[in-house]
């Protein structure tokens, strides 16, 4: 049996995707009108009900500045890496030395895991081969890794991306994890304090 409160939570979780669908409808039409908004709302509700998705646990936190920093940095990374990969493709001596790396993320949220996976694989030179959801591990196929130093710097780059995402719109628990203060420890210390 679901309680009314849980049901309200489930409906609330469907609202951000609904808003995204409405915005998408507006983007496709390229103009704003009240009729458009009404149709977008109807289509959005039909789509969210007909193609029901598993509710995504949103963090409920958004830091606008850090979010902008993340997106700007993402675009810069795409530009830089595109040029790198293109040069690799056309340069006279073709040396390919790739790697499949295991990268342990610090987050425990599905949303941040997905964002990090998409953000790292949209930057040229890395593809997500597999994901271990339970322990937040990404397995990435990375192009042009010559040495252990390359591997370490790539690992650091992915973890930096994760940190930027969490700073932008991760939960405050994840923000603390990034700082190295784990909530489990925190809960333990709080329990110690009260007893």
């Amino acid at each position, binding site marked *: 049996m679901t309680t009314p409160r849980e049901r309200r939570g489930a409906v609330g979780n469907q609202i951000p995707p609904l808003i995204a669908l409405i915005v*998408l409808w*507006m*983007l*496709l039409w*390229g*103009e704003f009108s009240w009729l458009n908004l009404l149709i977008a709302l109807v289509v959005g509700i039909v789509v969210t009900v007909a193609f029901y998705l598993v509710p995504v646990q949103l963090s409920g936190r958004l830091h606008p500045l850090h979010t902008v920093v993340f997106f700007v940095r993402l*675009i810069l990374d*795409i*530009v830089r*890496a*595109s040029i790198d*990969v*293109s*040069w*690799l*493709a*056309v340069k006279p001596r*073709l040396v*390919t*030395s*790739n*790697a*499949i*790396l*295991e990268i342990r993320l610090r987050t425990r949220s599905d949303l941040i895991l997905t964002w990090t*996976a*998409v953000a790292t*694989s*949209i*930057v*040229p*030179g*890395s*593809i*997500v*081969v*597999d994901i271990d959801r339970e322990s937040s591990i990404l*397995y990435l*196929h990375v*192009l042009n*890794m*010559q040495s252990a130093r390359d*591997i370490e710097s790539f690992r650091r780059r992915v973890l930096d991306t994760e940190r930027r995402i969490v700073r932008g719109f991760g939960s405050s628990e994840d923000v603390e994890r990034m700082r190295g203060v784990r909530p489990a420890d925190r809960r333990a210390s709080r329990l110690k304090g009260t007893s």
Partner: protein
Amino acid sequence: MSALLHDVLTAILVLAGAAMCLAAGIGLIRFPDVLSRLHAATKPQIFGLMAVTADVAINNFSVGTVTLVVAIVVFQALTAPMAAHLVGRAAYETEHLRPDLLIVDELRDRRAAR
């Protein structure tokens, strides 16, 4: 002056987009195995698309084109990694890869450890 600037900007963006698509095509032929070809096929082309659509938006500057360009780029950015992941994963699972090209394979190590 501003017309010249406009032309130069247009030329840079379109040429950058074209160069990226060309590089993607060349990479597709030259790279040795499925996983590295995926990099060439899916990635530089996103930047190419961004450059060309940005140019379209600059040349026909209106709310309609800008929003459409944003939608195109966002969808390309969301779908390309998914497609790459699915093909890459299928290639890995069916062992369509050349282990001699990998300097490390931590996924194999992990599976061997289990």
